[in-house]
């Protein structure tokens, strides 16, 4: 159980049965008046945000969140199957919940799954992932068009801008947080 004086940026609390994260926090206390805790809260499932002011005797439940490392097994239509390598328990996460993560998800990848009351609400991928280029235009040496990047497509179907010397079959390191090319990986 938390009280308002525990409120901090990043704290995760349960309000009306939903998990919220505190995205902004300000302590106020008008002269001789009572302590006020002004927050901005974001619903961790829907992403909806709102502002709310609490008093020091307000109490909250800690949001029952659990993070588990799981392995991506396979996808079937819009359903993505993951397995906990310790318990062998399997869960299904929808394409919608995965969002942009599907651009970087490959078989057997280990990801962190965030669960709220046993319900998966988010997935965190490793920061860096290595993906193979499956489609790239050849590098025209002496190209004077002035562009210093070109688009390539990697094994997941994701398309990104890379330096012109990258060719089909090469492996790239990509930052999953920004979706940007970092470097070529030599095996």
């Amino acid at each position, binding site marked *: 159980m938390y009280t308002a004086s525990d409120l901090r940026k990043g704290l995760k609390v349960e309000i009306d049965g939903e998990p919220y994260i505190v995205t902004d926090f*300000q302590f106020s206390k008008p002269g001789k*008046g009572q302590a*006020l805790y002004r927050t901005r809260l974001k619903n961790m499932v829907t992403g909806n945000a709102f502002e709310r002011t609490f008093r020091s005797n307000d109490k909250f439940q800690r949001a029952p969140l659990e993070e588990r490392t799981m392995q991506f097994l396979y996808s079937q239509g819009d359903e993505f199957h993951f397995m906990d390598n310790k318990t062998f328990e399997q869960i299904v996460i929808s394409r919608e919940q995965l969002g942009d993560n599907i651009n970087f998800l490959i078989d057997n990848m280990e990801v962190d799954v965030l669960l709220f009351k046993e319900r998966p609400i988010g997935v965190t991928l490793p920061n860096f992932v290595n993906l193979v280029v499956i489609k790239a235009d050849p590098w025209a040496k002496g190209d004077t068009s002035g562009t210093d990047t070109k688009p390539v497509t990697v094994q997941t179907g994701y398309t990104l801008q890379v330096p012109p010397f990258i060719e089909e079959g090469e492996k790239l390191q990509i930052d999953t947080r920004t979706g940007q090319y970092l470097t070529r990986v030599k095996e």
Partner: protein
Amino acid sequence: MAYSFLSRRAEIIQSIRTFFINRGYLEVDTPIRLPCLIPEAHIEPEQSSGWFLQTSPEMCMKRLLAAGHNEIFQICRCFRKNERGSRHLPEFTMLEWYRAGIDYVELMAECADLLRFVAARVDCPDRSGAALLCKADWEYLTVHRAFDLYAPVSVDQALAGDLFDEILVRDVEPKLGKGRPTFLHDYPAALGSLARLKKGDNRVAERFELYVDGLELANGFSELTEVGEQQQRFVKERALIEGQGRQPGPMPDRFLADLGELQSAAGIALGVDRLVMLLCGARSIDEVVAFTPETL
């Protein structure tokens, strides 16, 4: 330089001393660890081996005032539990001064004199805070009028709905002290625990707060000197503290006894860290102290 504010902080405190000494005030230093405190519902003290760390030097300074020390000031550390934010530290520096024979209107004038004096003497790279303090025509705004101007409801409606603090913080405070400092004055009677009720209008207390650029800097009032009335207010305040599940400390009996000797007077508390913030152009109180609780 991480510590460049320290020399400005020292200059500010030195200028405050010079101002009061020039005016014939006596600097005092009273104990900060006390067996009893003035009961305040919204201030939680730190305990110290069965006693308390002071939440303000008010009690001891008023006893000195009652003993005939008519112009006194003090710069000291105060402690308030669980107060931490961009404008709050649980241990902070307070300036308090008291003067016999004046009321809150004269005290507002003296407060303005002090801050203009300090702003003119301290060398500030970002002059915005100092420039505001140097303005000649400070604003005087009653709480009633401020709510009419800036809040969606009147003061009476806010009080009836138990939303005075919320509305003050959300709608009123951000508008105060813009372009020039604002004295917000004549607080609802219920919100001035140690203040005298206004002569000719007992619905309001002779209390004021100073705001500069939305920042609350000081709280002052004409002192209540009627012992019976003060005792009754303390009993009410202690009941509020008990209602919050806290244990009120012992009644400050010696303070109440000495209050009987007090002639008319006015007193004020000013947050020194916040004044330094203003004159340094700092956004957070963390930027103007050598250490915060988190860096110790």
